[in-house]
């Protein structure tokens, strides 16, 4: 019996030592208490080598869980990731309101320029209302080109423009009888912000906000890029744009076949006409936030929201481009420059503005009357003169880009 007691004591001691040893071998949890939430998280135990997503979302302030969801205190990977929103992409439009939303974040009011999510949800890029309504009208399912359907249902209580519609219903191809429209739904809905992109390297992108704001480097096949930026290069826009054309007879997408590596040939489709600035600058250098993310209204067509023209920066023979002098230190132009510090505007600087008053914050009126623009993604500095006082023979009333291209288009 004494021997059994010895064995028993030995067994107990052994097990206690085992427990101690195993506990000491566990990874030391790395605690983070982000200042915005005040709640502890352990994501950094495994993910501490992940690059911070952007200077305006520092991990010490935000942590990880406020955007990604997930189980903040779990050290087991499966449990920690089990309730993450949107998988690895919390900006997918199905979960964006919980991840990026909130009155203090990106679904605030238009007055303080923080209503991004509302605007994006109603924007043509995400509702795809233009393509859908054009198809439905062309094949007789709608009496006019006013949008009635979108990829997701959305409604808008406050309409501020002439072309805004109050609501869109969900486009459900199952209720359509026309075979062309059904083909359209099967083959052609890969390019709105919430769609999974076509497979293949040129189309690689994420969905939701990340579709534009998380630019790919080479290809995502190398792993997700943990980055949010406003310095969006043209290659990101080209994951949907400029990759080919639709053949309406067969209702298929015909991908462009030219292979090229330099910007001049890579940027636009072989059929396109463009000027020098249209390929040396990135899309975001001209196209504004309102054009890309919407103005809060639901529009029926891209043409109702896209309004930038050559004259916005260059003016006409009789008119200088519109400018604005920055007097208010809280002007949105300063905030935008902070996000992408390629320029350092000061109070008192004069910048170009669009017809709708959107500041082209990466521009400046130089003391000698010429203008300067710094490329948002390239950082290149361009100086240019207004059209007024130059040898331009433009008729002031024709401001279509095709008209300017007549003289200024570039040969590939």
């Amino acid at each position: 019996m004494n021997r059994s007691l010895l064995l028993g004591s030995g067994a107990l001691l052994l097990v206690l030592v085992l427990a101690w040893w195993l506990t000491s071998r566990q990874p030391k949890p790395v605690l983070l208490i982000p200042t915005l939430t005040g709640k502890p998280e352990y994501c950094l135990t495994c993910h501490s080598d992940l690059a911070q997503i952007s200077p305006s979302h520092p991990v010490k302030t935000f942590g990880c869980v406020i955007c990604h969801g997930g189980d903040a205190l779990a050290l087991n990977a499966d449990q920690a990731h089990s309730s993450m929103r949107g998988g690895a992409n919390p900006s997918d439009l199905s979960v964006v309101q919980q991840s990026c939303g909130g009155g203090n974040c990106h679904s605030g009011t238009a007055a303080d320029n923080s209503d991004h999510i509302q605007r994006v949800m109603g924007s043509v890029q995400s509702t795809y209302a233009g393509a859908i309504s054009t198809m439905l009208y062309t094949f007789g399912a709608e009496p006019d080109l006013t949008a009635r359907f979108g990829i997701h249902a959305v409604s808008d209580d406050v309409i501020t423009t002439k072309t805004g519609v109050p609501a869109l219903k969900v486009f459900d191809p199952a209720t359509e009888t026309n075979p062309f429209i059904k083909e359209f739904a099967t083959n052609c809905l890969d390019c709105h912000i919430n769609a999974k992109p076509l497979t293949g390297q040129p189309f690689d992108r994420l969905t939701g906000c990340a579709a534009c704001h998380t630019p790919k480097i080479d290809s995502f096949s190398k792993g997700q890029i943990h980055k949010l930026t406003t310095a969006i290069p043209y290659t990101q826009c080209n994951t949907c744009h400029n990759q080919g054309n639709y053949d309406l007879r067969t209702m298929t997408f015909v991908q462009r076949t030219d292979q090229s590596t330099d910007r001049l040939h890579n940027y636009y489709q072989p059929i396109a006409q463009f000027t020098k600035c249209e390929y040396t600058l990135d899309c975001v250098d001209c196209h504004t936030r309102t054009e890309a993310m919407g103005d809060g209204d639901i529009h029926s067509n891209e043409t109702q929201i896209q309004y930038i023209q050559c004259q916005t920066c260059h003016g006409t023979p009789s008119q200088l481009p519109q400018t604005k002098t920055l007097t208010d230190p809280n002007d949105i132009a300063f905030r935008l420059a902070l996000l992408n510090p390629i320029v350092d505007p000061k109070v008192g600087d004069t910048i170009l503005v669009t017809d709708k008053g959107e500041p082209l914050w990466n521009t400046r009126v130089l003391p000698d009357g010429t203008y300067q623009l710094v490329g948002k993604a390239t950082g290149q500095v361009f100086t240019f003169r207004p059209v007024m006082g130059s040898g331009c023979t433009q008729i002031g009333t024709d401001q279509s880009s095709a008209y300017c291209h007549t003289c200024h288009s570039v040969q590939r």
Partner: protein
Amino acid sequence: MPDPSRRDFLKLTTTALLAASGLIGLAGLIRFLDFQPGPAPKTEFDLGPASNFPSGTQTVISDVPALLTHNQAGFSALSLICTHLGCTVWQDANGLTCPCHGSRYDDKGNVLQGPAKKPLASLRVELTAAGHVIVRTG
């Protein structure tokens, strides 16, 4: 002394093993109870814009607690935690008095009277780039 018998050896070893288990258990218990779950107390207090504390004023900041003085020499902060047993010192007509056991300090924090022996601590004050006053207790 006779050689220890086999039974004694077994008994001794068993006792030793049990004692070792007990010690491990105790050590584990101490480590278990040693843990501090809550967030650490604040050591940095942002008091807001410096314009709230014009020159020539003294303000009691109850959060810290501290007495913030702004004079020609700049900002200074005196901790109002009594060095005797930790009550918050009050400012009254006689200067700084502790309500608990009657310690008294002058406006520089030196002990005038009372069971307290050590003077009130001086706290570091900083001005941020945005013009806010920060008091540090750590």
